[in-house]
């Protein structure tokens, strides 16, 4: 395997893990704000 494949695998891992965490935060954040808006409307 070429050295760059290892390097990209490592950066891919970082992007996946951190990105996945940020994505999850974002989804939950949107969910919470949607529910709050809904309460304000009702």
């Amino acid at each position, binding site marked *: *395997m070429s*050295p*760059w494949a*290892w*390097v990209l*695998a*490592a*950066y891919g*891992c*970082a992007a996946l*893990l*951190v990105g996945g*965490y*940020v994505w999850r*935060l974002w989804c*939950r*954040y949107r969910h*919470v*704000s949607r*529910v*709050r808006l809904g*309460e304000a409307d009702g």
Partner: protein
Amino acid sequence: MRPFAVGATAALLSVGLFLALWVSPPDSYQGEYVRILYVHVPAALAAYGAAAVACGASALYLWRRDLRWDFVGRAGAELAALFSGLTLLTGMLWGKPVWGVWWAWDARLVTTAVLFLLYVGCLLVRDLADDPERGRRLSAAVAVLAFLDVPVVHYSVVWFRTLHQGPSISLQGVKLAPEFLLPLAVNTLAYLALLGVLLAERARLASLEVER
């Protein structure tokens, strides 16, 4: 303040990535693999930083019973698990080509694995507790216990390895020249900034979820 912090972190991360993948020369001994260390080392520092924040905030929560400390403690525990997991993965991806093995019983690796397991346990305790208030208290206790235990684990593994058989392969043999120090410093700064932003956002989300 918030858009500025997020923007500055994104900029730092981009500069770090550019320095790590483009500017940094390949190392004479490790070759291109040195670039993995620009994720590995900052992630490890971020993991220990997150664990320290989790421990401090949890202790303050147990003392003051202010929910805000619990939000920070929970964010710290999650990020400690996340970054220590990332440290282990990138450590293996570095170790296989450079050392020839996926895993070495190096003190830092074992300590990071212990940190990872204890903070995963901390998060599980919170989620599986009978009621949310108890979950906050119990996971705060685990976060404090875990962080205080980690230095003892580290030194015991160091001595276990070094006093018995010759010192294991370690990073210490590899001296870093200045041209490698700059990317490492920028990336470390970027990851610590990322840790700060994620801590703040996670704590904010927790407070929003409780308000609801």
